[in-house]
């Protein structure tokens, strides 16, 4: 990492460390007082860990269930500095938890397990764990965990401070401290900006970025959408923070913010690409002229995928930023060329997917995100409209959704080569995003579940999400909450960002085709369920940043998405997760993407299951309309909503052409 800060930090650290996460200052005893949350279902290990951590003078909170840990974290976002979690837990996979935390709270997470197999460790890495400990954990290993906190902060600082320096895809070395602290976080998320400013004034050690509490910018869906749009517009290779910042034109956003976000985004894309197998295919339909040039793609992931259009990346990134861990669970092997990005999505194994879906992690990175994702679209929610089958969607169940963080819940939709799934506009996230659609990729929920079918149903429509501005960029679709997916076919709606929509989407091949490119597949059709309940007016819900951008204008998407998304999302999230719904709705409809109808039934978690057996009906036609309203023409009551969303996507032309192989997806069969 950038060394300069580190050094200075170190020196400072010893003198007065400020674990200011929650505003508490622990001075003079760095790293004492580090607030650690440890999660392990084995009480013996938990007890030992707690003792060891206490012996390191950390402030320890222990928890034996992942769900409890998540709610603790959500309730008290700034209450912890670092999380240590076991991999094997009965109620939730440790990796899912990892993803959630990364996306929602962006805390460093250390994984641990008695399993030291390379695959598992790799999984930790790809999911964004900052470290992986093998049990039995030695106290020496715990003594150094503070480095992860410091490192993360340092990076954030660094980005923050850097101003105007062009980054070549990499974080720039720390620049002078003359960071313009003046920029206030957009969306008012710079909680401590003021404080920070003061701190800075007082703090002579500018170098110690880590010590200064850095206000964290919350990358709302909308913001992320903008980000993705900008990245796509510039082309992933050329996307440097400064230019992105200029394009985004968000007051108060600093280059550093963008830089760090970009970094995460790249990691996210990298992760996704690692999964997908056919990188190039995505380009086919999705690639926008702009994106088409991915070339090396900074994102390594992209490399894998071949071409993650810048936009897609953006989208993906947004989604996966938090944790850059593409949902590995996505079993869907992206095979097709269309594919969407060879994200890890292929991983969406349905079997796992199901589980994953439940996990809130939204790994719905759009696997097959069409490269051409509209920048805008994706920005918000990069929900990969993954092939329906694939979507395991770890829908991000962000309880908090909308709010924050996680710019994109990149739903990794198995990008089945649906080819076009994501239209150009979408950032590649939606693997299957119908290309024309610039659609928003379905965030999480959607994508993942999609693929249950044939491996990776092409239909993934993970709508790329353009994070609707409203919601926090992440499409955290809370969907992930264990929603009970209706288990029916969800119309694949390219709901952008539906994060945990685990709609039971019955993906049917034909559906996919309809989706046409704009895969806005929303795996989480659960949302629709909710949608049903909600009136179309829900569309106005919080414009979740889901942007369906069929066309490349990111802006337009936003508008469109906003409603549709929010509406959809809202609805989609069934079960109780209200929050999810918001997200879902947003995510769900990625502009006109595949109109898969997502049965937003409950918690997107079922997306996985849905995918498996559901046929997602992607109504491409609807998509064409791009009007959200078109989304689901008939099936669910919400269809109107969806269609409305889809309408937005002009691109979503009736996807007759089944560019994507939506196998088995028959729109008609989607059980409502």
């Amino acid at each position, binding site marked *: 990492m950038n060394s300069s800060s580190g050094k200075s930090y170190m020196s400072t650290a010893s003198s007065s460390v400020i674990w200011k996460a929650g505003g508490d200052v622990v001075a003079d005893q760095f790293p004492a007082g580090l607030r650690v949350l440890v999660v392990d279902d084995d009480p013996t290990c938990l007890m030992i860990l707690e003792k060891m951590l206490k012996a390191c003078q950390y402030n320890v909170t222990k928890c034996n269930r992942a769900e409890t840990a998540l709610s603790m974290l959500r309730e008290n976002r700034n209450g912890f500095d670092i999380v240590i979690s*076991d991999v*094997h837990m009965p109620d939730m996979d440790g990796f899912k938890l990892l993803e959630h935390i990364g996306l929602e709270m962006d805390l460093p997470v250390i994984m641990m397990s008695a399993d030291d197999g390379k695959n598992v460790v790799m999984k930790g890495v790809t999911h964004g764990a900052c470290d992986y400990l093998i049990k039995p954990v030695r106290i020496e290993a715990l003594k150094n965990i503070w480095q992860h906190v410091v490192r993360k902060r340092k990076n954030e600082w660094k980005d923050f401070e850097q101003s105007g320096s062009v980054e070549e895809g990499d974080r720039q070395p720390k620049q002078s401290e003359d960071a313009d602290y003046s920029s206030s976080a957009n969306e008012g998320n710079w909680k401590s900006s003021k404080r920070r400013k003061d701190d800075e004034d007082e703090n002579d050690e500018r170098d110690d970025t880590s010590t200064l509490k850095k206000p964290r910018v919350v990358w709302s869906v909308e913001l992320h959408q903008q980000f993705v749009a900008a990245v796509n517009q510039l082309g992933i290779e050329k996307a440097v923070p400064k230019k992105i910042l200029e394009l985004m034109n968000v007051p108060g956003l600093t280059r550093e913010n963008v830089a760090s976000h970009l970094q995460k985004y790249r990691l996210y894309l990298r992760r996704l690409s690692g999964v997908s197998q056919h990188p190039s295919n995505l380009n086919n339909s999705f690639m926008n002229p702009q994106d088409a040039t991915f070339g090396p793609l900074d994102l390594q992931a992209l490399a894998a995928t071949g071409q993650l259009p810048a936009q897609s990346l953006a989208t993906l990134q947004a989604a996966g930023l938090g944790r850059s861990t593409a949902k590995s669970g996505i079993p869907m092997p992206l095979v097709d060329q269309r594919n969407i990005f060879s994200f890890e999505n292929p991983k969406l194994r349905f079997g796992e997917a199901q589980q994953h879906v439940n996990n809130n992690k939204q790994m719905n990175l759009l696997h097959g995100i069409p490269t051409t994702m509209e920048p805008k679209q994706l920005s918000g929610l990069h929900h990969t409209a993954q092939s329906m089958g694939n979507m395991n969607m770890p829908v991000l169940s962000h309880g908090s959704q909308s709010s924050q963080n996680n710019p994109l819940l990149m739903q990794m939709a198995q990008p089945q080569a649906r080819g076009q799934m994501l239209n150009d506009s979408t950032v590649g996230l939606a693997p299957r995003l119908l290309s024309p659609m610039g659609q928003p990729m379905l965030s999480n929920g959607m994508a993942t579940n999609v693929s249950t079918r044939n491996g990776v149903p092409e239909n993934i429509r993970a709508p790329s999400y353009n994070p609707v501005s409203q919601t926090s960029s992440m499409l955290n679709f809370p969907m992930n909450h264990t929603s009970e997916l209706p288990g029916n076919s969800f119309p694949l709606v390219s709901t952008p960002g539906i994060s945990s929509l685990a709609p039971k989407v019955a993906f049917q091949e034909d559906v996919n085709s309809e989706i046409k490119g704009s895969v806005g597949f929303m795996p989480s059709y659960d949302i629709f369920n909710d949608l049903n309940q909600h009136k179309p007016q829900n569309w106005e819900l919080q414009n979740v940043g889901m942007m369906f951008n069929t066309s490349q204008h990111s802006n337009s998407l936003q508008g469109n998405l906003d409603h549709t998304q929010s509406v959809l999302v809202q609805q989609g999230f069934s079960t109780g997760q209200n929050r999810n719904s918001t997200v879902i709705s947003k995510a769900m409809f990625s502009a006109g993407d595949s109109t898969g109808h997502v049965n937003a039934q409950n918690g997107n978690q079922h997306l996985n299951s849905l995918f498996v057996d559901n046929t997602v009906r992607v109504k491409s036609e609807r998509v064409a309309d791009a009007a959200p309203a078109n989304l689901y023409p008939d099936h669910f009551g919400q269809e109107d909503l969806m269609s409305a969303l889809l309408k937005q996507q002009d691109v979503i032309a009736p996807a007759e052409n089944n560019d994507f192989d939506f196998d088995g997806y028959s729109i008609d069969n989607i059980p409502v």
Partner: protein
Amino acid sequence: MESKHVNRQIAAMRQSFFDEEVLDEKFSQLEQLEGKDNPNFVEEVFTMYFKDSTAFLETIEEAMKTIPIDSIIVDNILHQLKGSSASVGANKVLKEVNKITRQVLGKGNLDGTKASILKLRKEYDSFKAKLEPYFQLKQANSVAQVK
């Protein structure tokens, strides 16, 4: 004095555990975590460990009786046992667990697996039988010393 004698006895017991490799250095690390405010930490840990592990073993044994064997359950439990045994320093128990894990992974060896589980059970019971009196003695001794 009595307590001195008992102390020696306790120390000898402890050393024998290391000599026999029933315990490994993890155990000593746990001991180091004990302190004034937490003098029975190790014993508490072991109490918890024995409680859970006994249940785990029973579950495995039950699972082995069903046909077909639910390997997922067995795998999960073995994984749990591995983690906790490693964390407390139950060296021989851990070794047996690892052996079974390898065997179970290489399926098809049902009889081998069953035999290994029997061995695990034996090792575990022996371990428990050694450690529990040790802790009891320690506990009694500390009480006596307080007096």
